[in-house]
């Protein structure tokens, strides 16, 4: 069931969509926090994403709203990161002490995580690995929904999950 014609003037917000946005607002904010790591920027991006969702109300076919909304949040977050030219850095000096993460980002976890624990170790993972693990573990999303949110094939989702978990196992993180 289509809501409004995307090519024409935006219709009033379907009540079902408004309800879906509010029901999934916590998940939207959670994803924004995990991707952006800054609470103020995350709130702004969520606000941005809601506006984008309203503008694209015509594109929502009434299906599962959480994955639809989180995809919009993710795109808004990535746009913000691109506009800054880089991700928002981790707060403490352990991040500055990390070697250049480009060659082996997973291995670079070791210095940081033993001190700060599992949550910090996950927060230090590269974005694609972090988001996959968070969506699977915290949001309990299926592989298929994670693929829909992140815009990659299911096989890539599985590979990213594996690399995230392998990195955490290798580092022997204490919770």
């Amino acid at each position, binding site marked *: 069931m289509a809501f409004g014609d995307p090519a*024409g*003037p*935006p219709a*009033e*917000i379907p*009540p079902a969509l*408004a309800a879906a*946005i*509010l029901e999934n*607002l*916590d998940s*939207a*904010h*959670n994803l924004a*926090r*995990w991707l952006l790591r800054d*609470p103020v920027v*995350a*709130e*702004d991006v*969520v*606000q941005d994403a*809601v*506006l984008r969702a*309203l*503008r694209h109300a015509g594109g929502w076919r009434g299906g599962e709203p959480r994955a639809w909304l989180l995809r919009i949040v993710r795109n808004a977050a990535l746009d913000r990161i691109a*506009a800054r030219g880089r991700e928002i850095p981790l707060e403490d000096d352990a991040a500055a002490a990390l070697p250049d993460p480009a060659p082996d980002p997973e291995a670079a976890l070791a210095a940081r995580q033993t001190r700060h*624990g*599992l*949550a910090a170790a*996950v927060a230090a993972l590269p974005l694609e690995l972090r988001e996959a*693990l*968070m969506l*699977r*573990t*915290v949001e309990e999303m*299926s*592989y298929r929904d994670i693929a829909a949110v992140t815009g990659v094939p299911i096989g890539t989702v*599985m*590979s990213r*999950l*594996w690399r995230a*978990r*392998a990195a*955490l*196992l*290798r580092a022997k993180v204490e*919770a």
Partner: protein
Amino acid sequence: MSDGCDTHRLLLQAELDGELEAGRAAELAAHVEGCAACAGLRTRLQALQARTQAALPFHAAPPALRARIAAQLTPARPAAAPSPRRRRRGALGFGLGAAMAAGLALVVLPRSGAPDRGAEILASHIRALQPGHLVDVLASDRHTVKPWFDGKLDFAVPVRDLAGFGYPLVGGRLEYVGGRPVAALVYRRDQHEVQVFAWREDAPQSPPVAERRSGYAMLRWAEDGMVYWAISDIPLEELTGFVERFRTAR
């Protein structure tokens, strides 16, 4: 430390995540029985999953954010004014006209139970002041801005040319208020933005009513089937003058 057989580790992961269909789960179970590396990996993956679930925070939306967004999504209630729905144009009720002429600022509290449009307008205005958020169409010419709205709103947007009075048009933006798409017109006064929000709503005619919120001056009025809000951080007296120009310009 082994990672299990290469071929089986993604299957072990899928089993952990509940993504392995029954047929393959049986195959996997048979393999794991004879493979210590895989059995070890399965145990470690399960332990990691449990610890991760316990350790990773879930960041729920703060109440203020939720309230702001809920207000944006709340549809406007139908006008339920007990008085006649239309006043004669020019009739000023409640002595507000005299108060305005005297330059008094009135702070009007929203009717209890009604959505707080003023709060929405304030939030929209502040958001728009962030870099990159001000306008969707950047044009000082109303003959560009007005048609831009035509494809997006089902009402005509009155874009006034007030450059001659010191309020050049900056552009326009599509906004959402009360669950509906509305027009936001952006004017500039020196270094300050003045925004006018406009939408079609069957509200009783009402002359400009003033309020101040968080350092911003606001005026709202309704005429000819449209509702308007003007907001800026210029002084209320100046915004009043702007609104008078806006209402009388053509």
